[in-house]
């Protein structure tokens, strides 16, 4: 087989170009940190990465919602806990007031304290989270005090929803109508407390007992709400854990497709450089000898 001189040089040049291209490709990967300069580098991988990025954004949304719901419920929890505490105090006051030996002044003192507790509860009922009433649904406030001292429910019973996972929606607020007993006609906690205070002043033991029973019912309702809150907050925590785990695993998959492993790439670069050098050397050797060296 004849081998023309040009053919040898051309073969050498082609080999040189190929090895150079390899070196260049790996260098670009290392400097950009990404194995995918464009979808053509790995079409299936690129498709997967696109979906993964959207999945990560979706999880970020859930995490934001979980954070918000947690803060919302947290505020509610504090309010309900305080309410529970003052109601327990009210219960104890009511029991105290049944003491036969109390004078009018002491009874008046108890009544005042009961009314003070009622006012505290009004304030607690209107607790807000970022300007929204925790117990008032979509309204601007949960309860309002009229001129004659009666307390009415101004809120709505709508639940503020937060999607915390693809399959779960959490209600982040509390139903004020239920918590404060507005769903029992005339026996909401504020009315009960007011009547109790009046009866304590009047010293009517039977009436006091009757109102105390209702007070106990209201207290139990509030304390049950604490249980509900606790379980909701628990579900939030597990939803958060699940979301974080999923985020980690998605990101790991993304990195496996997209990210350059520097150690591997550096080794590949060294090998490519070696191939390049070897090609250069072989080209240099192509024309070390010809007949010209031997003719006079």
């Amino acid at each position, binding site marked *: 087989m004849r081998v023309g001189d040009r053919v040898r040089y*051309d073969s050498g040049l082609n080999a040189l170009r190929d090895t150079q291209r390899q070196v260049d490709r790996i260098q670009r990967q290392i400097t950009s940190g990404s194995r995918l300069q464009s*979808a053509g580098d790995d*079409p299936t991988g*690129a498709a997967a*990465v696109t979906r993964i990025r959207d999945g990560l954004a979706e999880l970020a949304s859930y995490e934001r*919602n979980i954070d918000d719901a947690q803060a919302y419920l947290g505020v509610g929890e504090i309010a309900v806990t305080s309410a529970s505490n003052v109601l327990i105090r009210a219960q104890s006051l009511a029991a105290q007031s049944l003491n036969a030996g109390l004078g009018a002044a002491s009874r008046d003192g108890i009544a005042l304290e009961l009314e003070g507790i009622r006012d505290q509860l009004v304030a607690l009922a209107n607790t807000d989270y970022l300007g929204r009433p925790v117990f008032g649904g979509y309204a601007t406030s949960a309860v309002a005090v009229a001129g004659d001292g009666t307390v009415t429910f101004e809120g709505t019973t709508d639940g503020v929803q937060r999607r915390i996972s693809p399959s779960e929606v959490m209600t982040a607020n509390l139903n004020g109508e239920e918590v404060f007993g507005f769903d029992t006609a005339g026996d909401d906690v504020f009315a009960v407390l007011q009547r109790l205070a009046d009866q304590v002043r009047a010293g009517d033991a039977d009436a006091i007992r009757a109102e105390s029973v209702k007070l106990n019912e209201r207290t139990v309702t509030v304390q049950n709400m604490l249980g509900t809150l606790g379980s909701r907050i628990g579900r939030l925590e597990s939803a958060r854990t699940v979301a974080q785990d999923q985020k980690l695993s998605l990101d790991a998959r993304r990195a496996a497709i997209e990210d350059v492993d520097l150690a591997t790439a550096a080794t590949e670069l060294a090998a490519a450089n070696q191939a390049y050098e070897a090609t250069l050397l072989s080209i240099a050797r192509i024309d070390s000898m*010809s007949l010209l060296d031997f003719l006079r």
Partner: protein
Amino acid sequence: MIDGLMIGVNGLLAAQRSLDVVAHNLANVNTPDYARQRVVLKEAPPVTGFRPGQGAPAYGMGVVIQGIELMTDRFVEASIREQKSHMGSLTATADLATRIDEVLGRTDGGLGDSVSRFWGAWDQLALTPELMATRNGVLEAGQDLAGALREAKNMIDDVVAEADFRLRDQVDEINTLAEQVARLNGEIMSVHGRQGVAGDLITERYRLVNRLSELAGASLQVNDDGSADVLIPGGMLVGGSKASQIEVTTGPPAEIVWSDTGLPSATRGSTGAIRDALDGGFDDLYERYDLLANGIRTAVNALHAAGTDLDGTTGVDFFTGTGAGDLEVNAALTARGVAASASGPSADGNQAVAIGSLRVQAIIADPSDPTTPVATASASISNLVAEIGRRAQSAERRVESATAIGADLEVRRGEISGVSVDEELTDMLRFQRAYEASARVLTSMDQMLDTLINRVGVVGR
């Protein structure tokens, strides 16, 4: 002896000419596509005619150069033309696919991220529906999304325009080359007529026709008179010393026609591939982006119209447009007008929640059935990116393997047509010695003649 002088001179001339050809080959050792030439020597026949005496022996008159042979293999060269046509087509296709991949095949910061952020903006709005900041956030994310889709369509338009420009440019080059080949044919024919040698002209024609093969898928048919006809799929581009011209119609789609008659022509190679791509090759890409835009627009508008804004009014269209190229956020929509509420009160952000949930719902149709939504936006975009990447990747791979085949063919041609310096130098030695030998013959004939002329009949002087 006079004959002897002639024989010597013939030998000298033959050796000289042979050395010239060797020198020509050596000088062109690096010329691309050069085919080496070789002197064909033949014995010069005896001179017949008047000769005094009878029965004179017939002896040859030395050496004569029968011709200068161009060392080519026309089958290999035909294969090379076919390969170049194939390569031209594959390279043009790969260029287009790679351009699309570069502008639309991004995985980060691309369309996918814009769409994702759009859904996220609605999720944010759902948390604080009364805040102007989150309302404006939704409008901005919408503008970003619309911009990304319009941009995608514009980029495809750009690639199409570039391809059209390149097609016209290459057709111009084809016409110029055709003229040049026709002129060369004329020259080669006249050299043949004069019994001359046309080696370099033929090599030049080979070069030009190779480029025509790459551009137009041309093939060659050599005639007995030395001219060669250049044929493209649409007909005869060059017939002898006459060249036809082709041109590109305005389109779309752009068609290739003969300039003189306007009748349709056809090419393969690079121009063939570009013409095919321009004839609907980008249609499905345009369609997919349109389906994406329309799917998002329809779904978002439907939910937006079912919600109420800060002032209690029903939501207007969020997006306007008919496809990807004209998708816009409704210019009449203000931050207050964003319909985030499902039941009316401004604290209700459930309509925003619903719109944000479109992220995981099938709202985009497939080209196979444009009326039925079957995929989420993310899945649709991911399929699009994969398709774009696959086309670029497979086109590149085909170019690579064709390049390897092309390189092999060049090696095979080199075996026959390539110049080997060692070989030429050996020939040089050969002809040098032949020259010296013929020169010595001349000297010896000269001495004998000198004896005959100057020394015969000089007895006793």
